[in-house]
């Protein structure tokens, strides 16, 4: 496989992990986040700082996972106070805070970011295989999570959190768990990215990226593990397959998003379920 394809598929695997991680928070548990790129960034910076300071690859990954998860739980506290569009605005603010903070930190390289990360010890192809296995594990974990009782509780909270509470569900703890798990996995994706690109730049984690991740989840079908994974793969490959798409990336994403919201609110999953079962199918079921 040539270098171009190896790096392309590595990005595909990273984006899949990233979309699946937001799907836990927004798709499973119904908590809209427009700041997910910040957690991707926290994972990338944490992984990079650990790696530069001599931490071996597995330790840097684990560190990024844990540190990001802790930040995720703290931001998740916001979801206990505000809901829906207010939460979207708060998480967007968190994204700006993250960028604003990182850009001014000399120890994080400021505007120029961190460069010269040590190698993971694997070849480029080795990295791809490793990250792909990680993506597969995250995918399987998401499938399990959705079928577990935690998935049942998340789903109840997403549909009606007050009704869920009257049925004995500790809404606060489950929401924080969704944020903790989802962001920790995003941190994983960030650390993989840091190792893959061997540099971390603040601009990689802006609002646009957060919007793209959310768009991927919506286009794939909120809460559908398969749908979101497929959307992440397609939406990452599409701009590469069709060069013209790359120039109009935002236009295509925006157009798809509008089309999905208007014609198939269940995303790709809702669309395919409807084709199989007829109308009225819901991807969450």
């Amino acid at each position, binding site marked *: 496989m040539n270098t171009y394809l190896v790096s392309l598929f590595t990005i595909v695997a990273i984006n899949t992990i990233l979309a699946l991680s937001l799907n836990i928070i927004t798709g499973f548990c119904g908590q809209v986040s427009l700041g997910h790129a910040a957690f991707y960034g926290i994972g990338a910076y944490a992984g990079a700082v650990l790696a530069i300071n001599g931490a071996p690859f597995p330790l840097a990954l684990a560190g990024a996972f844990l540190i990001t998860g802790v930040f995720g739980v703290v931001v998740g506290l916001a979801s206990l106070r505000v809901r829906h569009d207010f939460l979207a605005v708060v998480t967007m603010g968190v994204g700006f805070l993250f960028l604003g903070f990182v850009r001014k930190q000399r120890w994080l390289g400021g505007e120029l970011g961190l460069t010269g990360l040590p190698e993971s010890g694997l070849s480029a192809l080795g990295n791809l295989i490793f990250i792909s296995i990680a993506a597969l594990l995250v995918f399987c974990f998401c499938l*399990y*999570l959705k*079928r*577990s*009782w*935690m998935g*049942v*509780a998340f*789903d*109840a909270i997403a*549909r*009606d959190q*007050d*009704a*869920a*509470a*009257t*049925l*004995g*569900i*500790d*809404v606060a*703890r*489950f929401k924080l*768990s969704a944020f903790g798990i989802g962001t920790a996995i995003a941190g994983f994706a960030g650390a993989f990215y840091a190792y893959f690109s061997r540099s971390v730049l603040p601009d990689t984690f802006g609002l646009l990226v957060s919007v793209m991740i959310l768009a991927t989840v919506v286009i794939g079908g909120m809460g559908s593990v398969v749908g979101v994974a497929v959307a992440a793969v397609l939406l990452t490959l599409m701009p590469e397959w069709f060069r013209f798409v790359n120039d109009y990336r935002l236009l295509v994403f925006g157009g798809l998003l509008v089309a999905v919201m208007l014609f198939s609110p269940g995303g790709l999953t809702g669309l395919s379920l409807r084709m199989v079962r007829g109308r*009225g199918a*819901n991807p*969450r*079921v």
Partner: protein
Amino acid sequence: MSEVLRAESLAINFGGVRAVDGLSLTIGEGELVGLIGPNGAGKTTALRLLTGSLSPNSGRVFVAGADVTALPVHQRARLGVASTHQIVRPFHGLTSLQNVLVAAGHARTRSVFSALGSKSRVTEHKRAKELLNLVGLASVADLNVDRLPLGQLKRLEVARALALDPKAILLDEPLAGLNTDEAEALSETILSLNRAGLTVILIEHNLSEVLRISRRLVVMVGGRVVADGEPAATVLEPVVQDAYVGTESDHAAA
């Protein structure tokens, strides 16, 4: 008779309105208490204070003798206080069975760790089916709740609350919006649950059904209890008659 639920001088203000004003009430195990009163008497507010979805400005709530005033809704639900909503709150997009399943899994969802660690739904599935059967919804178990009429959604609320294996169930106008047959069928179900040992508090405007099945009647007016006793006698007390005659139009409208 041991006490299941006790309110002690509960009071709450909404703006300048004292919605519940010094409510004290003790509910014993196995009772079927009808809670009536004209519109705005504070019945639903009282119920919400008991379940924990509202916090009182003063007063305390006890479940089986333990002070639960500071506990949130979900913890009181786990202590055995289940409730249904006046306006039905099904989980939209799920089937009836899936709706009941959420509550039937209360032992699994006790903590986030036990929830993450367990997947089997066999016992919960069976329990949910039993309950749907009990409330007469077995035939619509696999139907999306968005396709159910109000009468069935009211029953679903009851099944969901029962799935918590509660000590007491607080029903907020379960019969409202039902036709005579539906109302009678549901109140029969409530009666048989009570005979099986469940403590029931029933807020209802449907006086004939309340009087038919309750064994104790509590009347609220202006946020406080004005009469409490054997239903047939209580409803004839002058203070109750006054309250109802004074608001006949309200009552008719409800």
